[in-house]
């Protein structure tokens, strides 16, 4: 009987440890995380419109605001820094950068953007040091974000206030570019 109680408590302790381990490991091994869902939608360094207002949410991303159009682009900073640009006169847009595991690294909205234009450069710490040595015009115009990640994705959300805004939102998202940033030649 005592042996059974001992085995039972041993099982409980082991189950507890397994539970903690599994919960902590899920973000690293989730089979259907945001990155994987976006992977099905297109290559690295290219924006794809993953949801348009009016119900065209074919992205499998849950709980997306149906009043928003969303474009996403995956990047890999180990290849090059990322430069993202688009412009358009919308009542509201916001940008969020996520790491590979889908955690927010940085976000801002049109009000905090320079001249309400979307222009941003994402660099890792090494690339940041390089840019500091060699500042260029681009880096002065753009929001410069230092992120200590390799892979990640960027999401643009654009509000479609009513049906009449649909073409503007569509244009805003399809104009968005997601490119490798090339360092200016050292002078």
């Amino acid at each position, binding site marked *: 009987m005592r042996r059974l109680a001992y085995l039972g408590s041993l099982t409980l302790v082991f*189950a507890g440890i397994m539970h903690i381990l599994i919960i902590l490991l899920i973000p690293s091994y989730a089979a259907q995380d945001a990155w994987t869902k976006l992977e099905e939608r297109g290559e690295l360094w290219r924006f794809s419109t993953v949801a348009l207002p009016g119900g065209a949410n074919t992205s499998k991303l849950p709980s997306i605001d*149906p009043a928003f159009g969303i474009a996403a682009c995956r990047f890999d900073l180990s290849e090059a820094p990322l430069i993202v640009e688009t412009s358009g006169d919308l009542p509201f847009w916001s940008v*969020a950068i996520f790491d590979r595991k889908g955690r927010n690294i940085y*976000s801002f909205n049109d009000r905090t953007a320079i001249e309400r234009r979307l222009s941003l450069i994402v660099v890792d710490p090494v690339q940041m040091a390089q840019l500091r040595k060699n500042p260029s015009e681009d880096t002065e115009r753009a929001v410069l974000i230092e992120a200590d990640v390799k892979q990640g994705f960027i999401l643009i959300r654009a509000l479609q206030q009513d049906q009449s805004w649909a073409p503007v939102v569509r244009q805003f998202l399809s104009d968005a570019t997601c490119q490798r940033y090339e360092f200016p030649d050292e002078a």
Partner: protein
Amino acid sequence: MRFLLELFCVVALGLLLGGGLSWYSIQNRHGFGSLTIDRWTAWPQAGSPDADPYTKAKVASDGEVPLDSAEGVEFVARDDAQGQRLSRNCSYRLMGKTPVARLWTLAAHGEDGRTLFGSDGKPSVVVSRNMTYDQEGSVSIGVSPMLASGNWLPISGSGPFNLVFRLYDAQIINDRGLVRPQMPVIARQDCV
């Protein structure tokens, strides 16, 4: 021999129990890190690296892309003011003040987070700037399958649903700490 059998039982049962508990614990969101106002609950930290392990696991396994602090906050209501589960067979009226934000949207989502539609095929969502407010700045929105007077959020079909209130560029959390905002009350009217 007996030792091996016992070890096997402990490991097998432990795995089953631990795995089952983990599976169960990410079926629904938990109170960790949540902000509740009446029937509305938000997880302002859901997408941040500082979120608790359960919220992180839930976000990752669902593949969510939560709103970040500079974007907005998402409040979800599953029940009406009386505590009854929201049903698409019923009509509701949302009444009251809304928190300070540059804009907000109110949408109806299914249990799994997908967008719902009205019977006209348009998504169930309204945007704050198209709403009419009364003199005190309160808003009143009818949520129903049938056309409602004033502001109207159409729903259709049957079964449970969630109301999702998203505040963009909101002042829910400022540098002085949490600002307790007011959220509209969800009053049930009649059911089919």
